[in-house]
């Protein structure tokens, strides 16, 4: 049984005087122990809202959450505020894009780490301090004893993200959710942080839900990848399968529009036309149709279903998937 099993998760924002807007529209995926699952997509695809819903961090008012998210037998979406708070930090942890705003600016790093150790592991005083130093050491912060006394603004961006990871793994959570953890960092620092995350997964068996827009990060880190578009998964596959055979026109187009280091200078890219605002409701058809080169009338009649046009486990939500040209069947004479 998977550690986390998300089934038909949907999140709708309901503001007074406005039309309801559905940010996540029936997303399902599983995360196993020691597995890295990626949620990939561009802004507004619902990847961050998904993670917030799982962590119980959505505002209480003006949001309607549907579906199930079973974590080790309990439905996270049904837990009360006190219960989910207890789950966070003990079994679930999250790291965010902006490490500075996720840390309390007026409290030293050490106090912020020991607080977690105190609350969830009951460590006190010297023992907590020692464990905190060890945690910082573990995530590669040099001179942890000194760093514990420093405030967030005294650390560099990379160090802050490490501190945040230290806090996230303080109680050896079984599931770590990382929401664009390296987007605010430079590439050389990003490489360090990704290496650290890989190590955590390999050595501790932590399950990692990686939320990112960067297909390069996905290619190096994730075992399973879900590509989201306008709140729905449009393609789900193992990473090798996905990058070798992107089958949904969106995933296909996305990979084709990225400038490649090995392409000669001046070769034009193949962008996807339009913008994320050019969409139709999933209920009417495929939300990607207005930007798709291959849409047909069939794409505009009802929500396309997830199918497996290539191999088992490679799910695609498209009625005209990008497939290798089928050799024309030998013509049978009449």
């Amino acid at each position: 049984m998977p550690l986390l099993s998300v089934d038909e998760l949907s999140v709708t924002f309901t503001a007074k005087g406005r039309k309801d807007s559905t940010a996540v529209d029936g997303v399902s995926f599983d995360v196993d122990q020691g597995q890295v699952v990626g949620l990939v997509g561009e802004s507004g695809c619902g990847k961050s809202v998904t993670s917030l819903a799982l962590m119980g961090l959505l505002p209480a008012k003006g949001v309607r959450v549907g579906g199930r998210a079973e974590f080790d037998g309990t439905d996270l979406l049904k837990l009360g505020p006190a219960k989910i708070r207890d789950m966070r930090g003990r079994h679930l942890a999250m790291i965010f894009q902006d490490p500075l705003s996720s840390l309390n600016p007026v409290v030293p790093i050490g106090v912020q780490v020991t607080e977690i150790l105190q609350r969830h592991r009951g460590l006190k005083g010297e023992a907590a301090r020692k464990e905190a130093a060890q945690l910082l050491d573990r995530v590669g912060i040099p001179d942890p004893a000194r760093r514990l006394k420093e405030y967030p603004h005294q650390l560099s961006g990379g160090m802050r993200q490490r501190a945040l990871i230290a806090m996230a793994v303080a109680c050896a959570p079984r599931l770590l959710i990382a929401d664009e953890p390296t987007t605010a960092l430079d590439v050389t620092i990003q490489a360090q942080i990704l290496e650290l995350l890989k190590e955590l997964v390999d050595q501790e068996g932590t399950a990692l839900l990686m939320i990112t827009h960067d297909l390069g990060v996905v290619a190096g880190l994730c075992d399973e990848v879900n590509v989201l578009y306008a709140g729905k998964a449009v393609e789900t596959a193992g990473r090798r399968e996905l990058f070798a055979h992107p089958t949904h026109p969106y995933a296909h187009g996305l990979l084709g529009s990225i400038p490649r280091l090995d392409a000669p200078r001046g070769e034009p890219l193949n962008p996807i036309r339009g913008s994320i605002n050019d969409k139709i409701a999933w209920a009417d058809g495929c939300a990607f149709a207005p930007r798709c080169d291959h849409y047909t009338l069939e794409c505009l009649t009802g929500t396309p279903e997830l199918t497996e046009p290539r191999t088992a486990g490679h799910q695609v939500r498209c009625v005209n998937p990008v497939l290798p040209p089928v050799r024309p069947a030998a013509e049978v004479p009449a």
Partner: protein
Amino acid sequence: MTTLTKKADKVDRLAELMQTSESTTGASLWREAARRLRSSKMAIIGAVIIAVFVVLAVIGPWIAPYTPTAQTWRGEVFANQGRFVGMRGENWFGLDHLGRDMFSRMLVGARQTLLVGVVSMLIGLVIGALIGVLSGAAATLGGPMGRRLDTVIMRITDIMLSLPSLLLAVSIAAVLGQSLTTVMIAVGVVQIPIFARMLRGSMLAQGGSDYVLAARALGVRRNRIVLTQILPNSLSPVIVQATLSLATAIIEAAALSYLGLGNPDPAVPEWGVMLSQAQRFFDNEPMMAVYPAVGIIITALGFTLLGEAMREALDPKLRG
């Protein structure tokens, strides 16, 4: 042929399903703010209160049932013995200590109160904004000399800010003598540094923005950058402050009048003066104080509500 119609079909169908948001085209931020303001309950309540107050202030003298200064019922009130006349059919709000009709005095007094509020706010706004623009422009685009000028101006406003407003008003009154003008100047002067600092701060924030950098990169002249780029984007907080400061101006003016710094002629009705007069008889006839006090509070509330609603409507973070 069939493929052609099929293609037209799918394009039509797509156009039909696309959720276009073309309805919002060409709406400037000011217009959007006005739209948000119109749909805000707080703004509507505030605006209604202010409208009633302004109408009364303008037509008050004509609709007042009696002459506000006439001691018509002098014989019925014996303030020294604690005998007063409260609400009655003839005099809706009762009589004051000299036998004058309270209702008429309230109506006519509204005009004075509004006048003090608006004039003193304008004194603060106009002078404060001029200082603020100078300082803000000098600080953002004036180079080292500009920064020095800005420092000097700001130190002066700091000194003005550090003076207690009542003390400042008392000193001004001591120089100019007791009059309504004194009150207006005193209340206005106190607002000057507030407006100046606010506009400067806002301009400084806008001065560091990318679009100002872009304007410089375009080769737009400095004066024009200040006028077309920085200033229009810096005005929102000042507009909000102007509305809110009408409320404080009214209260402060009333306080100064109450302290006896206002119009020396007690016969001219003004809410602050009326409150001051009512104080002596508060034990016997509290209603004499309640009417002007409630008038001041409700009016101030009206301006505060509108100001807060405007703050929300103009806040770019709530845009959408």
